[in-house]
């Protein structure tokens, strides 16, 4: 099967007053149709910039300086904005942490959804409304007919996020990029959204890139997970493998520092120090200053190892045999 999206050595930089920040520093991954990729990292790791870079939504002073993003074989980097715009919303949709990014506060939900349908498909207004209605129904919004005539402020946060998801699915996109869409929501509402997202993506065979700082969400949702640190993917692989047997010291630390059931009363494993400034990345492995296993060799560019099919780790440490087996 060919990947829906194939990213190779993507690089995005921000020219700031204090120097060049390498927000995305050589990121590569593939997304298969119908698969969910969890892109996990802490603030400043470049996970959101990666998401925005994929569809050419990087504003000055940011700039994609290299690499390739292929959607169904078609190169997106360097594509004119008009063609990218035709692609966004139809083939590739985006969901944001704040649904008001997609919703216009002064227009009715129905109007916005109908216009979204009409923007890409030459159908009648009536038909567009019908599709909007069906889409709202699919994300679990009761009495969609009434809801179409409501304004965004009449919805709760969770409802708005549902509408944003419904809009994202309107054109049955092949790929959805979701940037922390449940972070601002309550726990019970969050699991409602996750469940709907999971069902829809499975039904429509939509590939999803789910950007999150929360490993536990990705753990329940994704097929594959990529862990980012300081603009790079340091580990990538099937979710179950990465979470149960993380190889990169950062991924190990990250997973160990989630306060889970088994650790009550004991100290949490913690990663000391702070994420490095993107303006002054240490030479070689960016995690080296915080890494308990750092050696002199880490000052050189860490090699990419592929210990098993579908697994990747960017570290000099020898990979234990049990993983490869």
């Amino acid at each position, binding site marked *: 099967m060919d990947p829906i999206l194939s990213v190779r050595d993507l690089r995005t930089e*921000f020219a*700031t007053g*204090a120097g060049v*920040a390498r*927000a995305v520093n050589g990121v590569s991954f593939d997304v298969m149709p119908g698969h969910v990729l969890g892109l996990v990292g802490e*603030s*400043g790791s470049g996970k*959101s*910039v990666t998401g*925005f870079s994929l569809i050419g*939504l*990087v*504003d*000055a*002073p*940011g700039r994609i300086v290299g690499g390739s993003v292929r959607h169904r074989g078609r190169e997106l980097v360097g594509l004119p904005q008009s063609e990218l*715009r035709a692609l*966004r*919303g*139809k083939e590739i*949709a*985006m969901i*944001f942490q*704040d649904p008001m*990014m*997609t*919703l*216009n506060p002064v*227009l009715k939900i129905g*109007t*916005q959804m109908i*216009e*979204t349908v*009409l*923007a*890409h498909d030459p159908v009648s207004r009536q038909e567009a409304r019908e599709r909007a209605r069906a889409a709202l129904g699919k994300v679990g919004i009761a009495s969609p007919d009434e809801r179409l005539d409501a304004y965004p402020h009449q919805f709760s946060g969770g409802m708005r996020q549902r509408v944003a998801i419904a*809009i*994202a699915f309107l054109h049955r996109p092949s790929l959805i990029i979701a*940037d922390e869409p449940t972070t601002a929501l309550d726990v019970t509402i969050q699991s409602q959204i996750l469940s709907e997202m999971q069902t829809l993506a499975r039904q429509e065979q939509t590939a999803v890139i789910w950007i999150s700082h929360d490993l536990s969400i990705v753990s329940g949702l994704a097929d594959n997970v990529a862990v980012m640190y300081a603009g790079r993917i340091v580990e990538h692989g099937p979710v179950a493998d990465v979470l149960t047997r993380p190889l990169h010291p950062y991924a190990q630390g990250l997973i160990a520092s989630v306060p889970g059931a088994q650790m009550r009363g004991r100290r949490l494993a913690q990663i000391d120090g*702070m*994420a*490095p*400034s*993107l*303006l*002054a990345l240490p030479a070689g492995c960016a995690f080296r200053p915080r890494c308990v296993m750092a050696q002199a060799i880490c000052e050189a560019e860490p090699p990419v190892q592929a210990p098993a099919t579908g697994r990747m780790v960017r570290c000099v440490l020898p990979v234990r045999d049990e993983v490869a087996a």
Partner: protein
Amino acid sequence: MNRPAEVKQPVVPVERPAALSTEARAGTVKSAVEGGADTPFRQALREFVANPFAVFGAVLLTLLVFGAIFAEALAPTNPYDLTKLDLMDALQPPGTQNMDGSVTFLLGTDGQGRDMLSAMLYGLRTSILVGVSSGVIALCVGATIGIVAAFFGGWIDSFVMRIVDLQLSFPSILVAMVLLALLGQGVDKIILALVIVQWAYYARTVRSAALVERSKEYVEAAICLGIGRTPVMFRHMLRNCLPPLIVIATVQVGSAISLEATLSFLGLGLPVTKPSLGLLISNGFAFLMSGKYWISLYPGVLLLVTIIAINLVGDHLRDILNPRLKR
């Protein structure tokens, strides 16, 4: 195809987060740079200097203030030294020399034979003195009232703000005229009148800024720590209300100067012995029709330039310090 761009596709709204996230990122990048980070003040200064109009206004204002402060040293004559005045020098056009040829009246003389340039420098000093001191007093009064209203809320807030509304619903010139009619003439009287018409602007500005600060966690933290109300208001909250206060103070000093000029022009403000720019204009007004334009014109131009300079600085301060106007 002429649909509103926002709905046409979720693309236009989609562009916004990119900008936002860039901003946020710039924030993290900045905070990550240890030590070398900019203080808000230095950043504001840099932005201010980047604007040529603002710099022009600031330079102009500095020159004017300098001229006003050192009026005695800079003025060719002392226009209020009656022994130096000679009625033979009255109403001379610009460029004339005085009787014994010791002084050239660059901007002419008025009906009493006073050198206009000197009179204007002295007048500017009076104008700025009245404008700034009334502004500073009104700021202290207004800021105190505004922050107390915001901090305590409830009926205190409602009561104070209704007075502010009442005050602001009357034209300031009218209020000032009534007050001066009651108080009589004098520098102290006009400052008092200007404070009374201006404090409400400061109170309203500080209150709205302080209401925002009041709800922030650092104020709750200060209360929780058991720091007294007065330090919480004045040491914590007021500091963070400074940006809008600085802006409104600049603009208000400008309007105080012009208000004083208007009142003096109408003969209500300052005594003739301490003429401000407004009074100078008024003095020359009688001669305007007889072609002696300079007596009114030059003080008028100076007043205009002063107010423009203040407003240039004020406008750009507002652009810099008001986060809502930032793109």
